[in-house]
Structure formats: C-alpha cells, structure tokens
C-alpha cells in the first residue's frame, strides 16, 4: 500500500499541521517506509483475539464528588501566549 500526497495532506489537516508540497513529499517517503514495516502485522490472524485496552492490571478507581480546586485563574492564564485578565484569546472564529 502507498500513501499518496492527497492522503498526506488530509492527515496533515486533521493533525492541524501545515505542509508545503515539498514537506508532503518528504513525509510521504518516510511514512511509506514506516508503513511497509508495519504491514508485517498482516501476517497474523487476529479475528478471534480480544484487543488489549489497558495494560494496568486494576479497575478504574472512583473519586469522591468534592471541590478541591479553587480559583487559580491567574495561574491558569499566566502561561498563555495571548490573553487578557480574564480570558484566553484566539483569532476571531466565525461559526
């Protein structure tokens, strides 16, 4: 199987990574060689195998419904590249 440039651009879009044609070509080469190597899995028949969803041998722990986190707005917004006092700021979105 080969991954074509159109697919590369589609994946890049889904990943929110911009790609030039040149970059897409390079990525296509890399990804194709990686997927050639991944295709080895097709040798295995796995129809009857249950997928492993978690490696941790335990069940999900449940926490109590308690408010422990206080107002830490300053801390939350501090690292933001663009902000005002109250909000995170992003380029205007038109729905």
């Amino acid at each position, binding site marked *: 199987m080969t991954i074509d440039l159109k697919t590369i651009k589609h994946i890049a*879009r*889904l990943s*929110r990574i911009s790609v030039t044609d040149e970059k897409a070509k390079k990525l296509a080469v890399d990804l194709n060689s990686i997927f050639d190597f991944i295709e080895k899995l097709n040798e295995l028949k796995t129809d009857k195998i249950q997928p492993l*969803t*978690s490696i*941790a041998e*335990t*069940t*999900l*722990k*449940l*926490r*109590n*419904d*308690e*408010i*422990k*986190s206080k*107002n*830490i*707005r300053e*801390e*939350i*917004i501090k690292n933001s590249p*663009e902000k*005002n006092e*109250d*909000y*995170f*700021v*992003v*380029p*205007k*979105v*038109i*729905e």
Partner: protein
Amino acid sequence: MSKNNNEYLINRKDNQYEVVIGLEVHAQVTSESKLFSSSSTKFGAEPNTQVSLVDAAFPGMLPVINEFCVKQAIKTGIGLKAKINKRSVFDRKNYFYADLPQGYQISQFKDPIVGEGKVILDLPNGQKEIGIERLHLEQDAGKSIHDIDPQSTLVDLNRSGVALMEIVSKPDLRSPEEVSIYIKKLRSIMRYLGTCDGNMQEGSLRADVNVSVRLKGAKDFGTRCEIKNVNSIKFMQSAIDYEANRQVDLIEDGKNIDQETRLFDTKKNETRSMRSKEDAHDYRYFPDPDLLPLEVSDDFIEKLRTDIPELPDDKKKRFIEQFKLSPYEATILVSDIATANYFEEVVAKMGKNRDVKLAVNWITGELFALLNSKNLEISQSPISAKNLSILINLIKNGTISGKIAKTVFEHMVEGDKDPQKIVQEKGLKQQSDPKALEILIDKIINDNREKAIEYKNGKEKLFGFFVGQAMKASGGKANPQLINEILKKKL
C-alpha cells in the same frame, strides 16, 4: 401543513411528507465537581475561575473520574428503564477547537454506561413510546465568546470538564409537538431523580436535533441533517419546522439533501450549514489510555436502584387510583416533582374531610396562574401548601364562598398569610345565619316589589337578579346556597 389528528404532515402539491426526528440530548449531571477534576460546576461564576490544571489540559495532567457522576448516570438509566452496562469504556473524540483544551473530548463511544431504554409520552390522543438508544457520560467543552472583542474570540473554560449525559433517542419522534413533550418528560424524570436540574436557560439541557423527511407511509429514512446545540424547546420546534420544510422543498425541486451539521439562527428563525465540507469530521475515537474501563458491580447498581424515587409514570398511576384524579389532571400534577409534592402536601394537610378535586382545581387554576404571572417555580410559591390547604378547607366547610376565597387568596400572596386570619381581620366570614339572611332578603323583596311580582307571574329569569342583590347587600359574604333556599321560599 396539516395538523389533523395531531399528525404533523407537510403538504406539497400531491405529496404528503412525514418528519422523522431523533434527539441527542445533552443533560448536565447535577454534581458538585466536574467529571474528571475537582473544580466546581457552579453556574454563573466569573470567567476562568472554576478551571483546574486538568480542565485546562496542562502538560502531564490526568483525569480521575467522579463516582457521583457515575451514579447519576446509572440512576438516570434506571429512570429510563434502560439496560445498565456493567462495563463501559471512555474514549477520546479528537478534534481541535478553541474551547476544547485537550484537543479531544473524553466521551463514551463503543461501550456506553447505559444501553437501550424508553420514555412514555402522554399525547392528547393516547400514549406513545419513544425508544432510547443509549446514554453515555462525557465532558462538556468550554465557551467561546465571539461578541465581546471585535478582533478576537475569547475563551472561558469554566464549563470545561463538567459532566454531561448524552441521551440519544431512536428516530421515533414525528412532530415538533412530540419533541416538546419528549423533552419535558425527560426533564421531569431527571428532576425526579435529581440527576439534572433541566435548566435550559443555564444550558443544563441542550439538544442536537436530527431531522429527516420522507413521503408519508414510506419505509426508508431520508437523508438527515443534524441541528447542533439548540437550547430551548421553542427553538427546537421552530428549527424542526424550518428544517423539515427546507428539506421538502429540496425534494420537490428534485435536489439532493446533503447530510450535514446545521446551526439554528435564532434571530432569523432558520437553519444554516455550519462547517464547510472540506473539513469533514473524522473524530478518530479510541479508548482513553489515561483511564481504565469502568466496571460496576451488580451490588453497586442494586444499591442505586433502591434509591430511585417514585417516578412520574408510577406517581401518575397512584394519583389516579388514590385520589381518583382524571388521567389529564394526574399528568399535569406529576409533570414536575415539585408540583406533585406540593399537591400531596396540600392534600395531606387538608385532613380527613378533604376535597381533593377542589385542591386540584385551586392548584392548577389560581396557583398556576399566580406563578405564571410572577414567573416563579412552584418551589418559590408565595403561598405555602399548608396555607392553601387551610383556604380550601375554609371553602369546603362553608366558612367562605369560592368567590370570597379568591379575595382571600390575593391577600395571602403577601407574606404567605394564614387565610383564617385574613377572613377574621377583613370580616370575610360567610353569613350563614338564616335569621339574619331572612331579614336581609325581606328588605330586598320589599325594595323591589314590582320585580317580585313579575317573577311570580312567571319571569323566572329575575331569580338571578335577587340572588345578585342579596350577595351585593352582604358584601359577597352571604352563603349562596342559603340565599337560594330563602329566596325560593319567600318569593
């Protein structure tokens, strides 16, 4: 469009179209803290003041699930007579958006916590069962604000991570009216359970509405459109009406309907396409590796089952049997748990010689009108159940007439006053002393000799005139039954 027999059909030339609707309701779980973090869920806080490091998706932050939210979802599932899944899995739904800090929403995709169930609707012409496909737990996103800053969109993450139950119906709804009744019923069940406050103004209940149309009698479904995030019943109804007609027009014009996500513009009262097609969503769901599968025991579920209160359908049945209410009256009284409780409290406080019918009339009549005019919930009623029961008993035992009772009721509004005191203070007690009334009536007959003669000569309509005069003379306090009896005797 015709609405005969409550059927909602769209007519074009020779064709009649039926509308098929399915709802994905997002109900905010009533809880103190969020689904996977310990920050508050309280509504109306200053922006970004209820945001933890987990909610804002800081590097290395991990989700830890809130047990109460799990219980709430299971309780709701029980209320929907649904299958509770002992094992469910949290998945990541991946997409980028400004108010989605993780770049994914933790939701349940393949294995939801609750499976198939049902909701019974009381329609004017009988009952209808609406199938529930599933209920799953997921995180709410934050809020993007587009209208504060002209250049930028602002992001408030207070809602980010709040627990939602997504309740997916089967495509069993057929009209905007049914949708309205369905939402109200769902809300009622959740309020009974205390699992969602159902407050639509605060966004605790929203729905994605899936609409398609087909020729009446057709078997196959048409192409559906999803109208996203509609937050009032009225808007849902308008949106469905608009969308169904839009789709019919397209079909009539021989055009195709694109399966797409649409937005309801509340100002223009129409739906429009929301996201461009090239950005077709591919959510890349996969099990969240930060969380293990959620496993609950039979014991855990059974304990919750014993916590389930009497739900609307059962309460309605009991009201009909116990209080001899009509199905219509019962439906109204059980629709809201607070109303049902109020009603039962009034009845209980009325004591042995109670008049349930009278109580129903006063609650659904005067009290509802009062609440409506003041825009209040029954829980905020200015008149307590206790005082209303006293008032009704005053009518029942003849202390005041129904008419006077209305005056008393008006006085009761101010400060939830005891109606007995009002009657006493204002001297509104009914005159039931036959001797006093006889004197009063004698005077009226005397003052209106000519009319009395006309009556005797057969002008029976004049009887009402005498009753009116007597009531007026007594300041409305005379016992109308006695007046009738005495007048008949004297005339």
